[in-house]
């Protein structure tokens, strides 16, 4: 990916459309959605259920095909007229996108360190170096004291921090979060949002969050609201 320029968006979506089914069963989940997300920005995707938020997040996360439209990461086009220009989307995700989930989705049979180190090892990092980087990230997110704990032994807030550490492991510039605070109380939700802000600023990353959680609305730089597949 080309080097980032502050005046260039990190994620650019142009006229993205997505429909499911055909004929009478056709459902238009997204209709000509265009948006830009810049580095160091914390962006919210808002809207009622079924408005297309998760569909858009899946397309930006390269896990769902678009019916039409284009998308570029850091100036490099990855989707053109609904067709992926990269053959290995999993590798694209591995190196460029970090995912944070509502229920953290940590691998239950790996401890906190290995959950983070796994992503690094998938990117061909040597095991020792991967673990060292994992510990460094856990310390950075103030959960280093729980590095040897299994996910089942972590509190909701701790597990979400480990998940954030995993999302940051390969130093991605794009972080996608799906309801990251839905399972947390106000205090812990605030801590997670502070962390995401810190990551966005210190790692020059763009953070896109799908949320219904009104208690975190104030943390966002920009909010995009979707209704019936269109940006409102």
């Amino acid at each position: 990916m080309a080097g980032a320029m502050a005046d260039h968006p990190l994620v650019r979506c142009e006229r993205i459309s997505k429909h499911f089914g055909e004929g009478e069963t056709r459902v238009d989940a997204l209709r000509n959605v265009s948006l830009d997300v810049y580095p160091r920005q914390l962006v919210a995707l808002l809207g009622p259920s079924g408005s297309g938020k998760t569909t858009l997040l899946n397309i930006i996360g390269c896990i769902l095909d678009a019916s039409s439209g284009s998308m570029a990461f850091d100036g490099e086009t990855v989707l053109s007229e609904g067709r992926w220009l990269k053959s290995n989307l999993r590798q694209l995700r591995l190196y460029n996108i970090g995912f944070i989930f509502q229920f953290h989705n940590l691998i239950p049979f790996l401890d906190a360190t290995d959950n983070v180190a796994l992503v690094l090892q998938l990117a061909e990092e040597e095991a020792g170096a991967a673990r060292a980087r994992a510990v460094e990230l856990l310390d950075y997110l103030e959960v280093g004291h729980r590095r040897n704990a299994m996910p089942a032994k972590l509190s909701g807030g701790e597990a979400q921090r480990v998940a954030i550490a995993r999302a940051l492991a390969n130093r991605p510039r794009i972080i996608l979060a799906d309801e990251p605070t839905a399972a947390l109380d106000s205090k812990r939700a605030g801590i997670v949002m502070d962390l995401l802000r810190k990551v966005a600023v210190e790692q020059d990353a763009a953070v896109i969050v799908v949320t219904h959680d009104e208690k975190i609305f104030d943390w966002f730089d920009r909010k995009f609201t979707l209704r019936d597949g269109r940006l409102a």
Partner: protein
Amino acid sequence: MNLAYRDIRHGFGRFILTCIGLGLLLGVVLAMIGIYRGLVVDALTIARAPAVDLWIVEANTRGPFAEASRIPGDVREAAARLAGVESAGGITYQTVETEHMGAKLRLYVIGYEPTRPGGPPEILAGRGIARSHDEMVADQSTGLALGDRLRVGRNTFSVVGMTRHQVSSGGDPAVYITLADAQKLQFDLAPPAVRIQQARGAVGGSRDTVNAVVARLQPNASPEAVAEAVRRWKHQAAITQEAQEQILISSLVDRARRQIGLFTSLLLVVSAVIIALIIYTMTIEKTKQIATLKLIGAPDRTIIGMIVQQALALGLIGFSIGATLIASISGYFPRRVVLEADNILALGLVVVVVCLMASGLGVRAALRVDPATALGS
């Protein structure tokens, strides 16, 4: 980082219980193979026990095991005089049921002449038969011990020697007695019947009848050539040792062999289905984790590797448990269980192949998992 190992370690108790369950099933498969082999070995044991080269039996029969055969005892003298024959002896076989220690005991009684071929292949304890009457050498599996006295027919025998692995093709343990005692047991009528026969004037026939005459040949003699010489007598049939063994395998135990073979095959199929279901279930339970792995960028080979390694670990650990179990308890089976290294190795390879094929079902399910499943609840 080995994900398969980490997952197994995480749920070790459950995994090992699954392995034990599979091990018991594979143990049954292994036992059936052992019983199958044991059946063949048992069938051949009695035929091999006299260590002879030629069997002379009643004309137009394939006796004495596959069909009934009765020939005059003096055939052994004629056989012993044939060129190339080193020694020959009459032999009888019959199954009797008696009582020992208050329980029914089925015995395969072999009558032979102690100075001629046809006796037990080895004496483990005690001695061979030395007296002409009422002595017996018994197989260990009879449950008899040296010095025991056992009533068979109208006579009581003393156990003077022990041998082993001598059972009929039906699994009845063998005892060896003198030919004279065996002929009395097999051909003598009960006293009331004798009296009736005497009243009819139908007595006085020779009792020297045997089921077969076995001949041991000189080292340079051709069994087939001697057999051909016997066949020229017209009233007897001659079967070489090799042909006798073939008759036993292809005729006497063939149905039982095929039955057990079929049952073993069915068990293998059932095992394969169960292994496939276990691996499929293990994979389905990890759907969310597989989706997460895909989402964070894990290549298919990482996910396939995890499933295949777990399948192989499950199969091999289960197989080891089953093999150890059967090796430990095979001596307690009522019939001989013969497990040889090649059988165990062959089943091990089958288990590996079954696991690889079964893991295909899990791999297929894993590859179909949509990474988007990881998002949302």
